[in-house]
């Protein structure tokens, strides 16, 4: 059986804005990974690996977009082209990939997995609309069909949540997919529900094992009529918006 441990070699690392970096690496042992799935990177001196969504996987080259927060991301941002990197992959479940008309909504670094998803959806022939919210112009990461910034320095002014109704009305999606801070996901889930639109959200939680066994990353979901624990690392990170108990 192909194990999920890989060693990669850094092909590119670039700073995208004040806090966000893009890193690319490949490993001969990693054959495939799907949108929504994530990898978990070993960071020198740290006990826990750090999970990151896949922003792209092309010709064996994995791309991750990450925001510098603490020691783990500091370590990764200090890596150089040619350095090796140990990671586990693929981990977690995936977004649904089909040809349904999909509205993708990201906020902040949450846009990372949506780039890869958007690409795959388009390959399936789906019509998509990629919207994202950021704090300010300097935080905007890449190209979108719609952008809002909290301070109005780029795109529309305000939180992406303020534009949900308009986006839904204009684009009329069959499905909404989102990756964003938990407060935003909650709003999106509830708006989607009120419109009876399918909704998939990618959650975050501090992780240890990444494979569902340590029970460190559970959230509550309502399934088969009862509330139960689900692990973000294995049962997720992708959940149906309406099943999450907030």
């Amino acid at each position, binding site marked *: 059986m192909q194990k999920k441990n890989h060693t990669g070699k850094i092909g590119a690392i670039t700073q995208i804005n004040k806090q966000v970096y893009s890193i690319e690496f490949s490993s001969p042992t990693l054959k495939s990974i799907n949108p929504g799935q994530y990898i978990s990177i*070993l960071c020198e001196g740290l*006990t826990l690996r750090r999970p990151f969504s896949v922003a792209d996987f092309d010709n064996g080259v994995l791309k991750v977009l990450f925001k510098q927060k603490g020691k783990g991301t500091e370590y990764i941002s200090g890596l150089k082209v040619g350095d090796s990197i140990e990671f586990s992959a693929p981990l977690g479940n995936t977004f649904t990939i089909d040809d349904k008309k999909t509205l993708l909504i990201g906020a902040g670094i949450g846009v990372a997995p949506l780039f890869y998803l958007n690409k795959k959806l388009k390959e399936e022939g789906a019509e998509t609309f990629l919207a994202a919210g950021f704090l300010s112009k300097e935080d905007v990461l890449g190209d979108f069909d719609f952008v809002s910034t909290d301070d109005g320095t780029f795109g529309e002014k305000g939180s992406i949540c303020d534009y949900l109704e308009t986006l839904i009305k204009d684009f009329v999606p069959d499905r909404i997919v989102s990756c964003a801070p938990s407060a935003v996901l909650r709003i999106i889930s509830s708006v989607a529900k009120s419109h009876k639109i399918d909704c998939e959200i990618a959650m975050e939680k*501090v992780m240890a094992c990444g494979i569902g*066994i340590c029970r*460190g*990353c559970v959230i509550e979901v309502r399934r088969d009529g009862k509330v139960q*624990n689900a692990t973000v690392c294995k049962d997720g990170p992708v959940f149906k918006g309406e099943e999450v108990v907030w």
Partner: protein
Amino acid sequence: MVDLSLKLNEFELDNPIITASGTYGYSNEFEVFCDVQKIGAVVTKGITKEPRLGNDGQRIFETSSGMINRIGLENVGIQTFLKEKLPILQEQGINFILNIAGSAIDDYVELAKIADKNKIKAIELNVSCPNVHSGCIEFGVNKDSLYKLVSKVRDSYSGCLIVKLSPNVTSPEEVALAAENADADAISAINTVRGMGVKLDFVNGQFKKTTVAGGLSGKAIKPVALSFVDRIHKVVDIPIIAMGGIYTLVDILEFFSVGARAVQIGTANFTHPDIAQKLIIELEEFMQKHKFSTLDELQNKLKEAEYV
């Protein structure tokens, strides 16, 4: 040829590298990373009579050279274990130890009986669980309640009975002796060290706080574990299975040198999910290279190491 095998009473292990409870699943879950069959023994996640949902809120917190967990014993319960996990262990020939937990002596006894009936060859008692009958003090911190617990379980279980000790005690010697006197076959130590992580955020003039109070594990506690094992080794004769921050072959040799007979790998499985298997290979190579043909030989040499 190097012989890494050992016996804990009647319980046989191909090698002394065991994976610790709560860090390796119930059965073959780590096969995505590691050849689980090669592990000396897998200790299952702590299992209770009924399934448990565990604690609310944040359960994991990284600290300097360690982590805190407050999983709260979330587990599938013994019945699901027997139905879904035991067959996998048996079919795949994975050597294992059932870790059991409860809030009352009867819970442990009942679980031990079930283990006995199902011919489970080894059980490990997690005695760091709150004892409902003594105001939620852990069983394992009081020598009398520990003695009683272990004796009762002993009466109901004929396999290899391992008692896993908590380091959160004034006197390691007392609890170790209680376990030995109650006829345990082996002691494993240490369970996690009580600890707490605090994360503060300061937003708009207000502090927000997350606290994770639970058990500290990982490299940070290795000195605590070495001290604990060294101390209890001086007073008990039953074999000691040591754990606490083991990451390397040198760590293992250190624990052997203070008297451990086998070791468990816990938190390190999260950092390096194939580490248990790698350590077996490294130990074997070390013994081969330096011409130790049995584990006994190596361990005796280590225990007799000259002090400098």
